[in-house]
């Protein structure tokens, strides 16, 4: 179960040595599945909001999490703070250095065991699992009791997107600021008052603002108050969920500058969640790009923006409008929409929209229905002699087959014609999905054609270049498309 990805390992601590205190946060194989039920009687499926996400974060470092609506970035933030219970996985926050190193090395060993083809030493495997379980129940936030958690709660704080709804409208600012200090520390009222004053000054407001209600403030000022509240108990980590999305450009700049100032002064670590790539570039040291619950690329900011490797990142970056009319945009317009997370595409979730897609990227029967119709439609119009009329296109996801039924039996010549149509379509540059057809056979009775799709490979987040993690089959050994983007990368990795 655990043998999934090469984790964002120990080495990165030295790679991104901007922090001075080592690893602050280690998130390991974190998952959150929401149950869905169509009938209301039983669970019919899962929305994998966060699916096997791992990363580390150092002190005084910023991880930008970027992705489109529904990619799971907000859920990830809430899981890390344990505002939501996770389905599986661990969050090690502020754990002793040795513990994290130990966990990482154990997980690496598990990975190796999972990948090696030789027989697995069952005993060793079980003992590793047991040890990991022990460590995680002791140190992982996701498994901790609520009493123990309280100690960690005050070292990490959220800042929410909407400055209008995240402040209690019936409390004055002084009370809003004092609340976390009252609950999570044993400061005396006198100290709290002093601290509040200091905080309000720190975020650029003045003392008289303490005695007003939230509705008397503008959006930017409210966000300042939200930040002041978050830093009131001297946390080490702030999870900022779209902190400036609701703000105007000029105010956004003020808030971003304030955050940078605070980070510098207080040595804070940030998880900065945003769909604004330009803000991400300004704020982050490293960036995780998420798509349908998975991290597809993870590396330091400059490398991501100048030398991205995942096709989704490429499309995402090219979609950002640049505020300069002379920069002609070489946009990659992604076709279609983000698929429903309740029923994501097989294999690599991104493959139906990917322009580099290969045959093993996860083409499944449901990807074939519309393109097949497109091929058959002009045939039908041309003449009914070429092929009989198509009755329906049946798909079977579990068997990985597409079945075409016709109203009449096909002659062998017609079957050959059909095959040539498919191979013609496969020869076209965008005909990858047709290349992914493993076999075409004539069904029993001769009035149906059965196509079997190639098995999908699932990409894993792998380190393809030092410090550059990508989850894409193009960078696997022996991939078809390495010639297009990944040739030099592949070499560098091996």
């Amino acid at each position: 179960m655990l043998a999934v990805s090469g984790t964002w390992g120990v080495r990165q601590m030295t790679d991104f040595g901007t922090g001075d205190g080592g690893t602050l946060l280690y998130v390991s194989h974190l998952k959150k599945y929401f149950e869905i039920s169509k009938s209301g009687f039983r669970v019919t499926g899962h929305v994998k909001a966060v699916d096997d996400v791992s990363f580390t974060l150092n002190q005084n470092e910023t991880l930008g999490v970027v992705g489109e609506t529904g990619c799971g970035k907000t859920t990830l933030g809430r899981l890390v703070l344990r505002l939501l219970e996770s389905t599986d996985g661990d969050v090690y926050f502020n754990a002793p250095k040795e513990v994290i190193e130990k966990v990482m090395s154990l997980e690496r060993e598990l990975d190796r065991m999972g990948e090696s083809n030789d027989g697995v030493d069952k005993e060793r495997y079980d003992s590793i699992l047991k040890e990991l379980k022990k460590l995680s129940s002791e140190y992982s936030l996701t498994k901790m009791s609520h009493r123990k958690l309280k100690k960690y709660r005050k070292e990490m704080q959220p800042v929410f997107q909407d400055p209008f709804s995240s402040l209690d409208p019936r409390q004055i600012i002084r009370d809003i600021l004092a609340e976390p200090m009252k609950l999570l520390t044993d400061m005396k009222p006198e100290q709290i008052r002093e601290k509040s004053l200091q905080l309000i000054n720190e975020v650029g407001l003045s003392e008289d603002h303490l005695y007003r209600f939230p509705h008397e403030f503008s959006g930017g000022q409210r966000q300042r108050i939200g930040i002041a509240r978050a830093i009131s108990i001297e946390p080490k980590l702030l999870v900022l969920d779209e902190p400036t999305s609701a703000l105007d450009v000029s105010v956004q700049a003020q808030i971003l500058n304030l955050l940078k100032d605070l980070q510098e002064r207080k040595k804070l670590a940030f998880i900065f969640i945003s769909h604004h790539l330009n803000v991400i570039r300004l704020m982050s040291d490293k960036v995780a790009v998420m798509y349908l619950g998975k991290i597809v690329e993870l590396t330091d900011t400059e490398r991501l923006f100048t030398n991205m490797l995942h096709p989704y990142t490429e499309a995402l970056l090219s979609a950002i409008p640049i505020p300069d009319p002379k920069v002609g945009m070489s946009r990659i317009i992604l076709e279609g929409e983000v698929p429903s997370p309740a029923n994501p595409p097989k294999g690599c979730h991104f493959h139906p929209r990917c322009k580099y897609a290969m045959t093993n990227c996860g083409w499944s029967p449901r990807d074939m229905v519309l393109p097949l119709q497109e091929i058959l439609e002009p045939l039908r119009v041309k003449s009914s002699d070429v092929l009989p009329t198509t009755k329906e296109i049946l798909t079977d996801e579990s068997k990985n087959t597409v079945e075409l039924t016709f109203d009449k039996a096909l002659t062998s010549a017609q079957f050959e014609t059909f095959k040539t149509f498919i191979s013609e379509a496969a020869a076209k540059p965008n005909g990858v999905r047709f290349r992914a057809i493993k076999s075409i056979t004539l069904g029993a009775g001769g009035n149906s054609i059965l196509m079997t799709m190639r098995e999908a490979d699932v990409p894993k987040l792998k380190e393809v270049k030092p410090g550059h993690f990508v989850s894409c089959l193009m960078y696997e050994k022996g991939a078809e498309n390495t010639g297009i983007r990944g040739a030099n990368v592949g070499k560098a990795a091996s």
Partner: protein
Amino acid sequence: MMQNTEGKKSESETYLRVEKLKTQFFTARGIVKALDEIDLTIRKGEIYGLVGESGCGKSVTAQSIMYLVPDPPGRIVSGKIYVGNVNILTGLEQLAKITVKSETNVKIKRNKRMIKRHNYLLSRIRGDRISMIFQEPTLALNPVIRVGDQIAENILLHLKVDMANAILRREMSTRKDYESFVQKALSIGDKDARNKAIREWCESYSISDAEELVRNIFLTYQDPETVVKSIEFIVNERKSGTNINRLSRAREYYLYQQRLFEATLNLMEAESGKNQDEIDRARTALNEIKKEGSSFLSFRIINKFIGKRIEAPLRDAAKRRVHELLNLVNIAEPERTALSYPHELSGGMQQRVMIAMALASNPQMLIADEPTTALDVTTQAQILDLIRNLNRQMGSSVLFITHDLAVIAQMCNRVGVMYAGNIVEEADVNTIFDNPKHPYTIGLLKALPRADRIAGKMVKLETVAGSVPNLITPPTGCRFHPRCKFKMDICEKKKPELDDLGDGHKVACWLYQEPGGSGK
């Protein structure tokens, strides 16, 4: 004077012209001076960007142009808005009398009869000549009506005459047409070519579902007489739902409605001109047309009861057009999408539907109010691309409103920057980004985090201090002066006019004009 010739040239190309538009909101806390006499011209075929922060009045501008400012509390106080050659604010003073006693005590006396007539004028112009795309497609689509019906509504409101014409032309075709076609078809020896001809012909008569049948007739019979008879039978069966007489009567009625509208419009324009002769002439003309109306009495009564049946062929045509439109906005399965409810579609799809709806009756002018703000980056890219392509294809003008300067840079030909109810700078897009003049524009551009530039821990953005002022008590003089780095004495005292610096680069700032010279 140079300015004059320049003005004339743009005049001929202008589609939308806004003059001294002043919109205010009369609230319990005081009068919000949302728009402070703004001027705006949009040329045919251009994309004009209006950019500014929230509360600067860009959405109010859009709503004012559509006369959609929520009333109460808002009202357009004065100004002119020319859409093509029609001023949609004709007779504005007569709609309501506003008596301002104090900031919080304002009496508005509405004239119901005039408002009714004005609504009539608006209903003929909105959607037909000018339409709008809203910011939140989720909220802007009616949740309980299928999207296809929502689009068709627009078509049925404005394209009735065109559609009736087309249908009648098709239905009135005679036996001669069939004969000549059958002769032609039989003369084609090649089977494929003949099939193709049949197909095209069937499509032009909208009997595509009978195509197979017609083809079989050709296969079965060889003598022209029988074939013609059979086809006639099919075609007649097809159109049995259409009562040609009724439809042509309906068309006459629609045309009469059009004439009535034009006459009403003339009268409204004459009335605002205060020339008694003209008013009388317009009134007689209107009365003449109204007299015609009596001849439609029986039709109107019939229409009231079986209007749906009369319009059935129009509805069919509208349905086909809905599918066409959905195709145009790159929706893969138009038939299925037309039947779905808004909540069943994703945000991007909803916005496409909105665009299809706005384009339904081929308007000359499209107002897009933050059309991509609620969408993801990749979807935003798709929608922007779509709007740009449609603008190129159809040649309609676009007023593009956004707070995102980057989108402006990628979309627009000309840009107006708004601040607190004023346009403070206006120029073509390159000038705005290369050589901004107004301190606010400069500040905005510098405050923008940019994904195309290297940033790092140490990089800080430049900011514009302070925030947008409260427009109940806006700052005196230049409304930007409390936040301005270059504030001078005059800025507090006198409002700078939007002054042309040459090449159409207009700035409203005392840094670039002499205090004495602005009175012109």
